[in-house]
Structure formats: structure tokens, C-alpha cells
């Protein structure tokens, strides 16, 4: 990825250009010390002069777009005043003497309700939307060079001297401060999507921090002071500006590309809302536009490269085919997964099948798309005007999920996941909660998955069967959890996880944890037999990918991993589980067993065992469990096989899966009361056994008899009230009890013959 730089030869501003800002409608406004405000279009062409001001402007910020709100920009002036100006250039409000000296930084909160200003006088003040002073948050002696709201709008991060400080706007919370740079910190930005902070300073470095002030990356020292730094709205990359330098950096810090616009220092940077264009305010008065080009996507054997801003080159390595896709407009966003390439230009969306590059499905989009999330059958588009729409691959609109307080501009690809039936989304306002939506209707489903700590990454598997829909997520402690989507049951499966990925085609789950590549070949095993889950897992040393590596794709048996320094690494796992999946999907257990015998691997046998238990294929279960030396389990399977009726077998299998409730349910539905009672007795659930017996008015004496025998064996006194009561009322006789049991069993056997 790199920028394509565009800059007018003769700069329109006659003096230093101090700030730039993209309006919500995709126009760039620039302010300069020559006391003018100019408007530019997205192609980097000068549009018009908006207005003249009486004092030099230092910083500007557009009110974040809300539905129906008119567009207002806040201009911070060098004399300590600030102005609210409409898009047409009319001064709506002018607050003089807001600060004692120049306002250096001005920022709207994300919901647009408050405006924070930071001045050379070392104060930060918060103003209401109408320009009324609400509070002075910070009063220090040193000038504050930059500030930014936290994603939750409840605190402000500011840069002063060599430090970064997060200060809560409401009393009661703790302030966090750390030394960030060896020189004065000049710029700071905090991405609400991924919660990562970047800063730059006079030590000629830029650094990346997490929200607690832990350093994630530190650049090398460059020739000049780094004057500006800005996240792209999607949080995947950021731009760094310095004297005659513009860099495009990945979110982990390493830089994609380096450019030398002849523009003097880049005083301020601003990204367009779709995250494809960055513009910088040049110290010599020029306005620099950087268009992201050379974006590369690869999926399986296909590679797509955005050559120019309206031309995509597709390269199919397997069939040795090259295709050039030309578009009329600038490509804003593109994504390729699940056999489909989705390309969004400024007005249209093209959906290509990888088998057929000549006839895409095309439909119009209203606004520029800044996020594409793909699932196996559907994909979701999020545009700059905060529409969130799900389409299928034929280009048909399916639904528009909505809920109260949805702020889609905070979403990124790791917050959203689409499968063939549900959409899962980390709630931006409460990251401990994952919301589930039905794709077809677009309505929230009645389950939400709640976790005790903040969830930072979440993904849903892509299998067809909705009953096997599982979700994996990582919380802020870097622990990884697995849960069924429709019946939430959160199980921790690993810790110190850097990143994970579901396989594109089947149910395999891979993660990088503590320098190892862990692959669960059959994560479903966790709901079948947890012992098998750990056995059906491959551990491979991946210490060479280093810390904090990001898994990009998991396709077939290949994982591609982006290391912290930006290089791509490819890790491979055994190819056999994939073949095994294919056989089991076709219910071809003969071949599956033959494959396992050929490979002779414990993991594969364990995998097959779990799969066959799930499919209730007891013969296969027996063979595969025997192969992994699980004698006790083989015994139980044999016992199950001998059971006379289908319901009792199912119940036994459920019991094997440690689903007692389910087992009891099955037995009671089949009116096998004795078995239900006996099961409870075996599990020492005496009260439940008695309840069942009483409810169904059978085998009460059996329960009492067994209880008595148990008490005698352990030489205990009766301590359960109910039993005390019933043992007095009901007498029992072992002969009659035995006879009754025999007759019940015979009845069951007879019924199934």
C-alpha cells in the first residue's frame, strides 16, 4: 500500500496552511495564516474560497455527522477565541477570550455534544454544543499541543511537554499519565475502533500505545520533528506527517510507504471519512492529498491489486489468468473472501465471483463505503453516512440491522462477523457484550453474549449448519473463549492469544498463543467431550512470527500471519483434517476410518471420535476411541450399543457428552421413567430421582429402596426431609422392585422390536 500524492504546483494559500478538515460530505476545508478558508474537492482540485477570517486559525474540527445535524466546523484561533462556522462560511457563534492565549487544539466529542479546547495557557476547557463553558478540566503551566476524546467520550487524552495524560471529564475516575517522548509531544490520536493511541513528538519519532499507556511500537528517529499523526477512520492504518515527509503506517506501527511531498512540514492531517484519502496542511501553504493505492488482497490462489485508484489487477495463480478490472470511478474499498471479490467505488458496488470476472453484479450505493465485511453467503457494507446494510452475493439487499445506540463509525472488521445465518457485533457502547442479529430479518435475536471483561476481537465460524454456529473471541486479558451462538455457553480454551481465525471452509479454529500456533481441528468437541478437544488439537511452534502477530487468513490448511514488523508469514497445518471433514460431511465413515489408519495420528483419531460421537456413529466412535487408548470410553460406548431402545441410547450419549439435563429430557419424553430415575440415582441426585418418580407415579419404592441401600452401605442417617417422609409412608421389597425393573426393561425392549 502506498499513497499517490497530489499537490497543486502553485499553492493557493499565500501563507502557512495551519489545518485541514474533511467535512462529512466529502469536501476538504483548509485554513491558513493568510486568513482565508478554502474548499477543495475529493480529487484534490481547488473548489472555492469560503470565507475570510479576522484572526489566524490554528486548528479546526468538524462536528461528527449525526443524522439530520447540519454541518458545523469549529475553528480555533490564535488569539484564544474559537468560532463555530457553518459549511457555507457563515459564523454561527464566536466565543472570544476562551483561552488566555492561542487555542492549539480543538475537538468535538464523538457524539457531538461537547467541544474540548486546549490552549497554550495549559488549560483544557469543555464547551457545550452551543458554546457555553461547561468545565475547565485541566489547568497546568505548560502548553497543551494536542487532545483527543476517548472512544467512550468520558475522558480526554492530551499531550503536554513530554507526557501523555488521560484525564477523565467526570470526577471520580483515575487519571493516567505516562512519559511518551524524549521531546515535546506535538500530536496525538486515539482510534475509537481499535482503542490504540499514536503520538508523535520533537524527538523525531512516532509511537504506538495501547489505552493503558503500554508502548506497542516506537519508530526510529527521523530527520525532522514529526508534526502530525492521524488515524484512518477504520483503524487499520495511520498517516504520519513531518517536514517534507508523509508516511503511511500500519496499525502495528511499521510503515507501508514513505513520500516526500514538497510542502514544508505537514502541520495537520485529516482523513476522508471513507479512509482512502489523507490530506495534509503544508507548511508552505500547499494542501497535499494522498490517495491510497496499491492495495493488495489475496485469498486462496487469487491476488487482487489496486493499481491506480480505478483499476484492479486480478491474478489467478492456479489457472495463470490475469484480469484487469477497470472502473469508472475511484475505488474506495475492496474485499475478497469466500470466493467473492467486493469492490466499492464512490457510487457503485461490484460483486465478482472468482470463477467469473466478466459479469459482476452491480448495484448503486448512496455514500462512500468505508467497511466491507464478508461472510460465506452475505456481506455487509457500512458507508460514511452510517448506513449498515447486508447484501447477498447476487447484490440483493437483505436487511439493515439496527439497534438503539448503534454507532457504526466505530465498527471495524474485528468487531463484526457475518455467517450464513447470523451477524455478530461487539456492542460499541459496551464492549463486554456481543449482539447477535438475524441476517434475513435484520432484527436482534433474543440472545446476546455477555462476558465479564471487554471483548476486543470476535469471529463467528462459517459452517453451513446453524446448530454448529460457534463464536470465538478474545477479551482484553488476551484469553480466548469459545461459545455456541444460539445457546451461549462460554468456555475458555486458551490464554495469551495474539490472534485467531476460523477456517474459511470448515470448522477448524487456529490461533497464535504464546509463540505457538494452536489449531483445533474440531472445536465442536468441546461440546462433545472436552478430553477429546485437547486431543484433537495440533500445537506447532511459531516463535519465529514473534509477538503480537495478526492472523490474516486461514484457508485450507494454510494460515497467513502478519508479523509485528509487517512481514507476512505463512504457516501450514496438517492437510488430513480437511480431508476428514469432507468424508464426515458425506457420512462416509468407512473412508474416514481408512484415512485415520493410514495417517496414524492421535489427533486425527480424536478428531474422528468427536465427529462420530456428534453424528452418533457408534461403531466409528468405538474404533477411534480404541485407537487413542480410551478404554473406559470404549466400554461405555459398548454399553450404549447394547441398550435396547433408541431414546435410551441417545440419552446415554447425551450423558457421555455430560449433558445430564438433556439426557433426562430424552428419557422422560420417551416415557422411560425407570431409566430416568436410575440415571439420577447413579448420579446421586436422590431428590431429583424421587421427584421424577413421584411426578410419574412409578418406581417410588425403587428410589426408596436404592436410597436405603446407599445409606446402609455408607452407614449414614437419612438427612433429606422428603425421603424421611416417604420412607415412612412407603414400604419396599427388593423382590418386587427387581421384578418391576425387569418388566420395565422387557417392555422397552419389546416396544423397540
Amino acid at each position: 500500500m502506498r499513497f499517490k500524492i497530489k499537490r497543486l504546483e502553485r499553492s493557493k494559500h499565500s501563507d502557512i496552511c495551519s489545518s485541514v478538515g474533511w467535512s462529512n460530505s466529502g469536501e476538504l476545508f483548509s485554513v491558513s495564516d493568510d486568513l482565508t478558508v478554502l474548499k477543495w474537492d475529493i480529487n484534490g482540485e481547488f473548489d472555492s474560497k469560503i470565507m475570510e477570517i479576522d484572526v489566524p486559525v490554528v486548528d479546526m474540527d468538524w462536528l461528527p455527522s449525526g443524522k439530520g445535524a447540519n454541518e458545523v466546523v469549529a475553528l480555533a484561533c490564535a488569539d484564544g477565541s474559537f468560532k463555530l462556522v457553518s459549511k457555507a462560511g457563515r459564523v454561527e457563534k464566536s466565543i472570544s477570550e476562551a483561552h488566555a492565549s492561542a487555542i492549539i487544539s480543538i475537538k468535538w466529542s464523538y457524539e457531538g455534544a461537547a467541544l474540548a479546547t486546549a490552549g497554550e495557557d495549559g488549560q483544557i476547557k469543555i464547551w457545550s454544543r452551543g458554546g457555553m463553558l461547561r468545565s475547565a478540566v485541566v489547568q497546568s503551566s505548560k502548553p497543551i499541543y494536542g487532545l483527543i476524546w476517548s472512544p467512550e467520550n468520558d475522558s480526554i487524552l492530551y499531550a503536554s511537554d513530554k507526557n501523555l495524560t488521560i484525564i477523565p471529564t467526570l470526577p471520580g475516575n483515575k487519571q493516567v499519565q505516562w512519559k511518551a517522548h524524549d521531546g515535546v509531544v506535538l500530536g496525538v490520536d486515539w482510534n475509537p475502533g481499535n482503542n490504540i493511541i499514536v503520538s508523535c513528538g520533537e524527538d523525531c519519532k512516532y509511537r504506538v500505545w495501547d489505552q493503558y499507556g503500554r508502548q506497542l511500537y516506537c519508530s526510529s528517529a527521523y530527520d525532522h520533528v514529526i508534526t502530525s499523526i492521524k488515524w484512518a477512520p477504520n483503524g487499520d492504518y495511520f498517516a504520519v506527517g513531518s517536514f517534507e515527509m508523509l508516511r503511511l503506517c500500519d496499525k502495528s506501527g511499521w510503515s507501508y510507504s514513505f513520500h516526500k511531498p514538497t510542502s514544508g512540514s505537514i502541520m495537520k492531517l485529516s482523513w476522508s471519512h471513507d479512509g482512502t484519502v489523507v490530506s495534509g496542511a503544508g507548511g508552505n501553504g500547499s494542501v497535499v492529498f494522498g490517495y491510497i493505492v496499491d492495495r493488495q488482497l489475496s485469498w486462496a490462489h487469487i491476488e487482487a491489486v489496486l493499481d491506480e485508484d480505478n483499476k484492479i489487477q486480478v491474478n489467478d495463480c492456479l489457472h495463470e489468468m490475469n484480469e484487469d478490472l477497470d472502473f469508472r470511478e475511484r475505488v474506495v474499498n475492496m474485499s475478497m473472501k469466500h470466493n467473492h471479490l467486493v469492490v466499492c467505488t464512490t457510487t457503485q458496488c461490484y460483486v465478482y465471483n472468482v470463477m467469473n470476472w466478466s459479469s459482476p453484479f452491480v448495484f448503486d450505493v448512496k455514500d462512500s463505503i468505508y467497511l466491507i465485511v464478508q461472510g460465506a453467503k452475505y456481506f455487509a457494507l457500512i458507508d460514511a453516512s452510517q448506513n449498515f446494510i447486508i447484501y447477498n452475493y447476487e447484490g440483493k439487499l437483505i436487511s439493515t440491522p439496527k439497534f438503539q445506540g448503534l454507532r457504526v463509525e466505530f465498527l471495524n472488521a474485528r468487531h463484526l462477523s457475518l455467517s450464513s445465518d447470523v451477524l455478530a457485533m461487539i456492542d460499541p457502547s459496551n464492549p463486554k457484550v456481543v449482539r447477535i442479529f438475524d441476517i434475513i430479518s435484520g432484527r436482534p435475536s433474543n440472545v446476546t453474549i455477555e462476558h465479564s471483561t471487554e471483548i476486543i476481537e470476535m469471529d463467528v465460524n462459517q459452517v453451513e449448519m446453524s446448530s454448529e454456529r460457534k463464536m470465538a473471541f478474545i477479551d482484553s486479558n488476551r484469553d480466548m473463549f469459545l461459545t455456541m451462538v444460539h445457546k451461549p455457553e462460554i468456555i475458555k480454551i486458551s490464554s495469551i492469544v495474539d490472534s485467531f481465525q476460523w477456517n474459511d471452509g470448515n470448522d477448524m479454529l487456529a490461533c497464535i498463543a504464546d509463540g505457538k500456533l494452536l489449531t483445533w481441528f474440531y472445536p465442536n468437541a468441546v461440546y462433545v467431550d472436552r478430553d477429546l478437544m485437547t486431543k484433537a488439537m495440533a500445537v506447532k511452534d511459531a516463535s519465529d512470527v514473534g509477538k503480537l502477530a495478526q492472523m490474516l487468513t486461514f484457508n485450507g490448511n494454510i494460515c497467513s500471519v502478519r508479523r509485528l514488523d509487517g512481514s507476512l508469514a505463512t504457516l501450514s497445518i496438517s492437510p488430513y483434517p480437511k480431508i476428514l471433514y469432507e468424508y464426515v460431511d458425506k457420512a462416509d465413515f468407512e473412508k474416514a476410518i481408512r484415512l485415520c489408519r493410514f495417517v496414524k495420528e492421535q489427533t486425527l483419531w480424536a478428531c474422528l471420535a468427536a465427529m462420530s460421537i456428534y453424528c452418533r456413529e457408534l461403531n466409528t466412535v468405538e474404533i477411534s476411541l480404541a485407537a487413542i487408548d480410551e478404554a473406559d470410553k470404549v466400554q461405555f460406548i459398548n454399553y450404549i450399543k447394547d441398550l435396547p431402545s433408541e431414546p435410551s441410547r441417545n440419552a446415554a450419549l447425551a450423558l457421555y457428552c455430560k449433558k445430564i439435563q438433556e439426557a433426562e429430557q430424552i428419557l422422560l419424553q420417551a416415557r422411560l421413567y425407570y431409566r430416568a430415575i436410575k440415571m439420577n440415582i447413579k448420579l446421586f441426585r436422590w431428590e431429583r430421582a424421587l421427584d421424577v418418580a413421584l411426578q410419574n407415579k412409578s418406581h417410588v419404592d425403587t428410589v426408596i429402596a436404592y436410597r436405603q441401600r446407599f445409606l446402609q452401605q455408607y452407614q449414614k442417617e437419612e438427612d433429606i426431609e422428603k425421603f424421611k417422609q416417604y420412607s415412612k409412608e412407603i414400604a419396599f421389597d427388593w423382590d418386587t422392585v427387581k421384578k418391576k425393573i425387569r418388566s420395565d426393561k422387557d417392555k422397552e425392549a419389546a416396544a423397540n422390536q
Partner: protein
Amino acid sequence: MSYRELRNFCEIMRALGYHRNISIENFKDPNFELVADILYWFALRYDPKADISDDIEEEKDRVLFIRSVCQLFAAKARITLNPKKLYEAQGFAVKEMLKVAQMMYKAMQSSQTTEDDENAGALMDFNMSSKLHDLKAARQLATEITESGAKLFDLLGQEKDLREARDKALEFLDSISRNLDTNTEQQYIEKCIRNIIDQQTRKMNEMEDTVKQLRMDEGELDSKIKRRKIELERAEKRMKGIENVKPEYQEEYERLEAELERFYMIYVEKFSNIDYLEYELDRYNLQEEKRRKEDQKVIENLQNNQRRAEEIFNDEDDDEANKKQKDKLFNEMRETRTGFGAKGQPPGKNGNYKQGAHVAEGELQPEDDDDEDDEDVGDDDEDEGDDNDGDQVDDDQEEGSDHDF
């Protein structure tokens, strides 16, 4: 001081290429070293020949430094800096320095925009050549300025005289304008003009006279030239006539000349012969000397032998043996006598010897064989031989002259 100024200053300094990064907070506290360094850099950048000491060790040095910098910029760039603020070296100093920085930055920008060139290196080169062009133009302009200055000076020098005339004229004009009704001024002007016309007509007549005079002179000169030309022609004709006449004594003169030539040749021949003969004579004398010495030796030997023989004679009685010994001695003596006896030998034998010697030597003048034979023949009587030789030469001369001419 304000944030904006500091920021702009940092930015401008970066653009100007100042060698260190200036922090936005560098001037929060007095920082004289940095201010001094920046000012020194400015001064050198503005005028590389500026003579400013960069010594800021002591207070008076600092004051001197600031003053000299201020003077430099005031004199050369017409930028007034506040030395007190500069000396404070705080934010206000930035304001002062910003004046200079902005001037330099604008200069840089304007040159950039005219060049319209991205490449900085090429820009520099291009600048140099264009500056060279400018240099020539500037020099020319400088000389023009001095010239016109000198002219102006001269004119101003004449002002003293001119003023009187001008005053007069002004007075006159005033009087005209004052007395429009009277005619005196007009009459005066008429008179003046008439005077001028008279003068001119007089001058014209004089000129006509001189022209007439000159015409006459011209005619005279023409006739003179004609005369001279005729004379020249005549002289040339005579010269040709004289050239064609041949003098009668010429033939004789030529003949004599040829004769003289021949005689000279003969003379040369003779001279060389004489020279040769003298040389031969010298050699001969030399050989004679040698031979005489050898003879002397032999004689001494003989005397010795004789003495010995006498001794033997006295000792022995055998006659025969003595006789044989004697014979041997005599034979020996005879042989030696014939070996070197040149004067005593008959002339024929002598001539043979001569002949041989001559052959050995005679390669130099092989054509003169006959003459030498003659000379050798007449060796005994030298006078006769000489005469004979002279005759022969004469004969030869007579014959040779015919041949030569």
C-alpha cells in the same frame, strides 16, 4: 510570543535548512546560545562575507555581537531588529528573528516559484548560471550609473553660468507677460533675430569665398599633376632605350673571365701537387732518419762481433774454422748493405722502390701518374725536371682552355 509565531518560526527554519531541529519550547527560558547561533547563521546566510565575531563568552562580547548583527541587517536588509529583545533571548526574540527568517523564506519561495523545479540540486545550478548573467548586466549598469553620474556632475558645475542666463530669460519672459500692451520686447526680439540673420549671411559669404579659393587651388594642383606625369613617362622611355643597348667590351670581358677561371684551376692543381710533393719529401726524410739509425745499430753490432772475433782469433789456431766464420760475417755484412743501401744503389733499382711506394700512396691522384713518372725520372736533376713540368702545365692549359669554353 505566541504559539503561532513559534510554530511558524520552527517551520521556516526547517524550510531554510537550519542545521538543528528547533523545539517549539526552546525559547521558553532565555536561551542566548541558540539565539546567537541562529543570528550568526542568518548573518552568514545573508551575507557570507559579513564580519561578525561569534564570540559570546562574556557580556560585552554578547552586546557587541547583538549590535553588529543588528547593524548588519539594518544596513544591508533594511530590517530593524530590537537588540534589547534579542538580548533577552526569549519568546520576543523569536518575533525579531522571525522578521529576518520571513524575509529569507520569501526570497526562497519566490525563487522556487520562478524556477518551478522540483529538483533542488538542479535548481541551485540553474540559479548560478542565471546569476552569472545577472552579474554582467549588473556591471554594465554600474558603469552606466557612474557615467551618467559624472555627466550629471558636469552639468551641475555649469549651473552657475546657466543660472544667470536662465534668470535673464525668466526676467524677460516675466516682462513680456507683464507688459503685454507694449511692443518694446517684440522689437527687441526682432532686432536680435535680425542680428543673427546678418551674422549668418556674413558667415555664408565668407564660406563662399573660401570655397572659390579652394576651387582655384584644386585647378592648379591638377595641372601640376599632369606635368609630372608626362615627365615620368619620358623618363621611363629613356630607361628602356638604355636597357636595350649592349656594350662592346662585354665579349672581351667574358672571355677574360673564362680564362681567369682556367688559370685559377691550373693554379689550384699545381698548388696541390707541390703540397703533395712536400709531404712526400717529409716522409722520405723521416724514413732516411730511421734507416740511418738502424745502420748505426748494425755497425755497432759488427764492431762488437769484430772485437769478439779478434779475441777468438787470438785464442784458436784453426784457420778454416776462422775462415768460415769470417765468410759468414762478411756475407752478413753484405746482405745488410744491400738491404738498406739507397744512395749507393743504381737508379733503376731505386726507381723500382719508388714506384712501389708510389703505388701504395698514389690512390689520391691516380690521373697524375704520368707527371709523377716524369718527376721521378728527373729526380737526380731537380731544376730540369721543374722546367719540364712547367712546360707541360702550359700545354695542358692551352688545351684545357679550348675544352672549357
